[in-house]
């Protein structure tokens, strides 16, 4: 199978407009005859479900939380980018496009990124109209800040709760459509299988998490908006429930998984404290606007209190290594530099896995009041967790898994390799390449959901010749049966280890071997070790309770079972990509400590096809062409 990205012809700036015109429309009277399933209710899922309902489609939306408002988009703090150029500082659609392609280390698809930059401006307007309380200047106009290493101020924000406010906006739109009858919402329902009829995605199997009932839902198209797979590392900044199940189940049914090894490690998280730790907490990257990152120059000083280390004995390593970007270097670079400092034995705090983020200079320069206004809620959160006062003692931070750029492969229309299966938001792979810029995740989720998918799905529905399918179709019956069997199997193992203990062990393997730095030996070891762990899981896991009740252990077991397969795929992708790019750093491929890309051999999207249980997946390549942003070494020096 050759991958056809279906990128429209013509200059990059005109592709989307042209494509919008060329796409087939569904007659307004016919829209209500089409039923679309949306799995996930985060920024992408909620905005897509609401918008499609506004257009007239019948939508069923599923989420595993108790309300669509809880999706983990809510946790994004910093902001959302848009090429509004309200600051008159030289921003433009083209510049946002350029920055995103370059920031993604030339591993993203130009056409998608350009479209993302184009619709970014509409997102802000849409959100303002919905009542998202973006920060404002005294003149009443929208405020902006520079974020995550961007040299223009294009980030819109709502205090430190931008993700929350955008999600609540989308959630309210969704609830409005639920009230209007266009969307049927299924909260506390987890998708456990995708159903294909004649090779086309026609429905899902979900588990009602309260009663345990296995339900079938049929539709004309299925949209996955199920987020990223960062929890494969066990410890990440993701919510506890985030999982790979929906996308991995789709993968096993034929959807290609693209670039799974591209994971983003966020540089500013609160360091791990003990082995009971259940998740990592991110501190907004905006902190790096005013905080200075340092470690002691000498290992001997690490145990000292930070205040006892004089200025000349401190190594402000980001400012030293990357003088033009300094503390605002992109996430992958800042993360790796922190790891290097700690690997060098100069890390601070318990276990030596931490670096200082110091606000002393900023407080001296701007006053504690100004710092409190900017970061008060973050400082409070830090103090609650660590019991240390960051106004007095520098924060300690360490990188943590935060976002996954990889995801199901989609074409320009956001359709996967399974006809009818569309994938949006973090769950797809399309826009961020090998590294995502700060404040771009919210932008992409909403771009896909509000402005792209509602168009492209119409194009699909208008052309697809779909037979009528009910949930009594043999494929649905078989899928239900398979789900029930898998559940019974999990419950009957009655082993001695808890689900969490397997998850922790997998997470440690992934972090050690497929985390911030990867090498051949480690990845090969992991590819051998993960199947062993998986085998042990299926023999020795202990899942208490029954299938017909609210059973949180069972929910976790299903997710971890998928992570145990997916982790291996990730390692395989990381092993095959013999270069360093963005969030993927192979220690063998570096030059003077900097990532070394190999554009001749690896300027492609690696899309993996499931080849059967126990078989190595098949690699498909989508060549990436850079016609507008020319391949160059990414330098922030």
């Amino acid at each position, binding site marked *: 199978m050759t991958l056809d990205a279906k990128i429209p012809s013509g200059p990059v700036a005109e592709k989307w407009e042209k494509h919008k015109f060329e796409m087939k429309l569904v007659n307004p009277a016919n829209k209500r005859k089409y039923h679309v399933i949306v799995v996930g209710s985060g920024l992408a899922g909620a905005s897509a479900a609401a918008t499609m309902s506004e257009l007239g489609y019948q939508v069923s939306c599923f989420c595993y939380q108790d309300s669509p408002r809880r999706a983990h988009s809510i*946790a994004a703090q910093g902001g959302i980018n848009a090429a509004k150029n309200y600051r008159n500082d030289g921003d433009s659609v083209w510049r946002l496009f350029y920055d995103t392609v370059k920031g993604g280390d030339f591993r993203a698809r130009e056409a998608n990124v350009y479209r993302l930059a184009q619709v970014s401006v509409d997102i802000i307007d849409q959100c*303002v109209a*919905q009542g998202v309380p973006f*920060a404002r200047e005294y003149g009443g106009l929208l405020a902006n800040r520079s974020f995550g290493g961007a040299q223009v101020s294009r980030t819109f924000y709502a205090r430190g709760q931008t993700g929350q406010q955008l999600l609540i906006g989308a959630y309210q739109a969704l609830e*409005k459509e639920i009230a209007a009858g266009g969307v049927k919402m299924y909260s506390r329902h987890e998708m456990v299988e995708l159903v294909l009829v004649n090779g086309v995605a026609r429905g899902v199997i979900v588990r009602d998490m309260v009663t345990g009932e296995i339900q079938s839902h049929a539709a004309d198209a299925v949209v996955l908006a199920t987020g990223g797979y960062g929890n494969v590392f066990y410890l990440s900044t993701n919510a506890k429930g985030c999982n790979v199940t929906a996308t991995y189940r789709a993968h096993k049914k034929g959807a290609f998984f693209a670039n799974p090894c591209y994971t983003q490690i966020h540089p500013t998280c609160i360091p791990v404290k003990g082995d*009971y730790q259940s998740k990592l907490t991110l501190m907004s990257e905006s902190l790096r606007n005013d905080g200075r990152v340092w470690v002691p120059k000498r290992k001997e000083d690490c145990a000292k209190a930070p205040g006892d280390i004089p200025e000349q004995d401190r190594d402000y390593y980001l400012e030293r290594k990357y003088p033009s970007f300094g503390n605002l270097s992109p996430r992958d670079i800042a993360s790796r530099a922190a790891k290097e400092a700690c690997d060098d034995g100069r890390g601070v705090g318990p276990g030596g896995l931490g670096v200082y983020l110091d606000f002393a200079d900023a407080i001296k320069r701007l006053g504690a009041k100004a710092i409190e206004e900017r970061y008060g809620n973050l400082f409070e*959160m830090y103090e609650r967790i660590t019991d240390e006062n960051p106004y007095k003692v520098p924060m300690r931070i360490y990188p943590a898994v935060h976002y996954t750029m990889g995801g199901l492969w989609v074409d320009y229309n956001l359709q996967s390799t399974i006809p009818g299966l569309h994938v949006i938001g973090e769950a797809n792979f399309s826009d961020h390449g090998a590294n995502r810029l700060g404040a771009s995740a919210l932008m992409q989720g909403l771009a896909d959901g509000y402005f792209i998918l*509602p168009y492209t799905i119409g194009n699909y529905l208008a052309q697809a010749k779909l037979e009528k399918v009910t949930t009594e179709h043999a494929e649905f019956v078989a899928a239900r049966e398979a789900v029930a069997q898998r559940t019974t199997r999990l419950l009957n193992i009655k082993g001695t280890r*808890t689900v969490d203990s397997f998850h922790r062990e997998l997470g440690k393997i992934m972090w050690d071997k497929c985390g911030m730095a990867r090498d051949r030996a480690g990845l090969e070891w992991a590819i051998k070790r993960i199947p062993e762990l998986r085998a042990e899981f299926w023999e020795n896991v202990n899942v*208490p309770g029954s299938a017909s009740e609210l059973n949180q252990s069972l929910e976790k077991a299903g997710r971890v079972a998928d992570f145990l397969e997916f982790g291996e795929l990730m390692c395989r992708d990381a092993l095959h990509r013999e270069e360093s790019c963005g969030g993927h750093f192979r220690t063998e491929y570096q030059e003077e400590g900097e990532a070394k890309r190999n554009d001749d051999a690896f300027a492609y999207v690696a899309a993996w096809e499931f080849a059967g249980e126990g078989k190595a997946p098949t690699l498909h390549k989508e060549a990436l062409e850079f016609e507008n942003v020319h391949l160059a070494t990414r330098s922030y020096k």
Partner: protein
Amino acid sequence: MNLTLRVWRQAGPAAAGAMREYRAEGISPDMSFLEMLDVVNEGLIAKGDEPIAFDHDCREGICGMCGMMINGAAHGPQRLTTACQLHMRSFSDGETITIEPWRATAFPVLKDLVVDRSAFDRIIQAGGFISAPTGSAVDGNAIPIPKLDADDAMDAAACIGCGACVAACPNASASLFTAAKISHLGSLPQGQPERSRRALAMVAQMDLESFGGCSLFGECMEACPKGISIDTINTMHRDFLFASATKRDVKEWSGGA
């Protein structure tokens, strides 16, 4: 730290429940409250017992999924803090901790500490939105909004929908939740066209969901992890009164051709 937990256990929505006692041993003061429960649960599973079911997701205090009554206070003793952000250093060694689910007719218990808060979603459905279909928006800067209004909106919009306000209220009232949304949207120019309809519809739905009325005890504000002010309730009452006084019927001939 070693602690004694008294926890509400209930097998299902229709089952009878009871308080049960558990030991939590070797707890680190740096653990979050939910991590402490994780540790207790791992122990329960090892012993062949059923783990304590509780809702949680982001564990960083923003998703609003977690929530439980801890020693008689919603989300526990620390102000402006959700259960997931509460740390064990707030307790002392040897303490007995009472843990109960949110209690309200509108929040039926599903299992142990897990309750059904879908009533909140239905209150939002009744009118907690601005009808702005995708694509219909004007430029974000077309309507300037005074900073103080935007700040007021943001203060109210900070609600995470956790239900602590209901749990803490002696009347089990959802006034703070409902009022926060009415205040958020009512503070913005975009929210004006639907302001009256919103107040009437959301209040009606709130009543329909069997929440209690507001007696202005103030407990909700204290329990709110986001510190939402009962001033929002004042706003809700004002909007409701204004809307009631100026209510207009939809004209029968207002439909299109």
